[in-house]
């Protein structure tokens, strides 16, 4: 059993019967689940299973069409204020980093705090520097994203999300676009973040990371959660045929 001293019983994300269609294609077929404050959930599944779409609904990059999602007591609805509030509460890290190429790394990080949280420029940049320090790349602050390695870019992207002081962090395949030797530096940062008690939803294929850090592993297939369990149970004693197949395929390489 993983230690989860930071996990409390307060739910922070509540999803009930979440449905989503892309035109006629039913991507999410009724997801019902709850994430508790401080929980680290790893979401895996084959491509096209809806796992990315699911975490993107949580900060409204995708709109769900049926069901309810409540994040930190705020319902995701068509209320403009709620959407803006939730986006401030939820940080997101993308597969392709999506750093702003025309801004230096420190400007990438301080843009949100200055424009959204209305921090002063100086305070925001100090905070950004502190974050870069925490990510171990303080010396790259005044470079442009194109001038640093992929692993460093992804760490800047994590710092950019953390700069908004979110309560929840979403990771959408954060290591998939990285060269193998850079994966570990990003995973180290995520591990550190996990130990600091951040609520994290991570879509990833890094099963080692899942086993080590996660409180729960969810397996998505064709828009539904087929299986969810603590990592030990999930990996050593999978219940479902699809899960077994997936685990054996993923662990092969």
């Amino acid at each position: 059993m993983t230690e989860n001293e930071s996990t409390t019983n307060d739910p922070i994300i509540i999803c009930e019967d979440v449905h989503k269609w892309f035109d006629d294609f039913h991507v999410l077929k009724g997801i019902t689940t709850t994430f508790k404050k401080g929980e680290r959930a790893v979401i895996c599944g084959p491509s096209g299973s809806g796992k990315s779409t699911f975490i993107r609904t949580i900060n409204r990059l995708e709109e769900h069409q049926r069901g309810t999602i409540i994040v930190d007591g705020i319902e995701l609805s068509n209320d403009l204020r709620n959407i803006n509030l939730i986006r401030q509460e939820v940080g997101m890290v993308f597969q392709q980093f999506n750093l702003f190429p025309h801004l230096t790394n420190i400007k990438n990080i301080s843009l949100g705090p200055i424009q959204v949280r209305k921090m002063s420029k100086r305070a925001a940049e100090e905070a950004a520097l502190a974050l870069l320090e925490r990510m171990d790349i303080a010396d790259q602050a005044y470079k442009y994203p194109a001038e640093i390695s992929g692993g460093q870019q992804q760490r800047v992207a994590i710092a950019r999300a953390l700069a908004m002081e979110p309560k929840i962090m979403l990771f959408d395949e954060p290591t998939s676009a990285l060269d193998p030797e850079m994966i570990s530096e990003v995973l180290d940062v995520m591990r550190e973040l996990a130990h600091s008690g951040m609520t994290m939803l991570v879509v990833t294929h890094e099963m080692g990371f899942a086993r080590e850090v996660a409180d729960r592993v969810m397996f998505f297939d064709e828009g539904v959660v087929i299986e969810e369990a603590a990592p030990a149970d999930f990996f050593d004693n999978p219940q479902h045929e699809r899960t077994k197949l997936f685990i054996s395929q993923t662990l092969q390489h």
Partner: protein
Amino acid sequence: MENTAITQEVKPPNTKKGPVKWLKDNLFNTWYNTILTCLGLAFLFFVFKGVFTWVFTQADWEVIPANLQIFSIGPYPLEQIWRVSTVIYGLAVLLGLSAGIWNGLTRQITVAIGCIGAIILLLPFHIPVREHALIATVILAVSFAIGRNKDNWKRWVVVGWVLSFPWTMMMLHGFGAGTVSTTMWGGLLLTLILAAVGIVACFPLGVLLALGRRSQLPAIRWVSTVYIETIRGVPLITLLFMGSILLPIFMPGDFQLDKVIRAMVALTLFSAAYMAENVRGGLQAIPSGQVEAAQAVGLTYPKTMLFIVLPQALRAVIPAIVGQFISLFKDTSLVSIVGLVDLLGVARSVLGNAEWIGLQPEVYLFVAAIYFVFCYAMSFVSQKIESDLGVGKH
């Protein structure tokens, strides 16, 4: 022992450089290139011979210096000329300060303009013209010296540039007894004003139209699309004619709009549609992940556009935008059809004068040279910006 022989530096064969080698490589490397070179030389010989004979023996260049004032300012009254020079001095101050504060391209452009001033000084112009050129050049140099390393002035200089626009208009127009109505504006002065107004005004309008055409809201998207496609589908002179013929019908009875302003509006509305398409090209090149990342950070739509999307999109299409500005500059020559006396208009009026009849080639070549210098300079600057920013390198 043998090892040292191997490591000895081996020179590549045939590294000879020099004019002969260059000629051989670039002009005479194959038999057909040799023929081409000979043909080209013969062609150049005849062209140059013809042009030189005409320019130096047959052409009558008297018409140019005699009408220089008309070419530059048209019928603008001479006793109010101080207005024009004040404007030039003001712009010289701003330009000098900017060159001092910002390095790189701004400074190069300024130096180039300073050189033009110095050249005017040396050419056999009238004394007052050379005086103004001298003063402007000195002002440019002095404000350059003042502006050096004054980083904290940046904001004020930008404000100055923004204000320079209405200030120029007011200054040229004047007020009270000394008013110079726009009908008296002409020549190169009018051409430059029309182009500047068009460039400044079509830019924001074009950006808005481009955003409108990519909007998620169908009504806004449709209206923008119809506007852009309609304007791009018709020639500019239909718009100019509409301004002069249809506008009086579509406006309330007593409404009167200045001819120059009508032309400005037509030019702006026309260029905005093309600008919108250029900007849209840039917008399409921005990956959707950029918008998503901005939203995830919590930026609202206007801020996402302002801080994330537009800076990248515009940068990607700088060459196209400058190309658009060059076309706009050339297009100003069409306003003579609705009775304005821009550079081309004054050229035609000079040729209408019995004294200068039959000198079309001389006058038109002179005017063409002026247009060429401005357009070529703009495209040169655009290439510089392109290479400085490394557009397309990422």
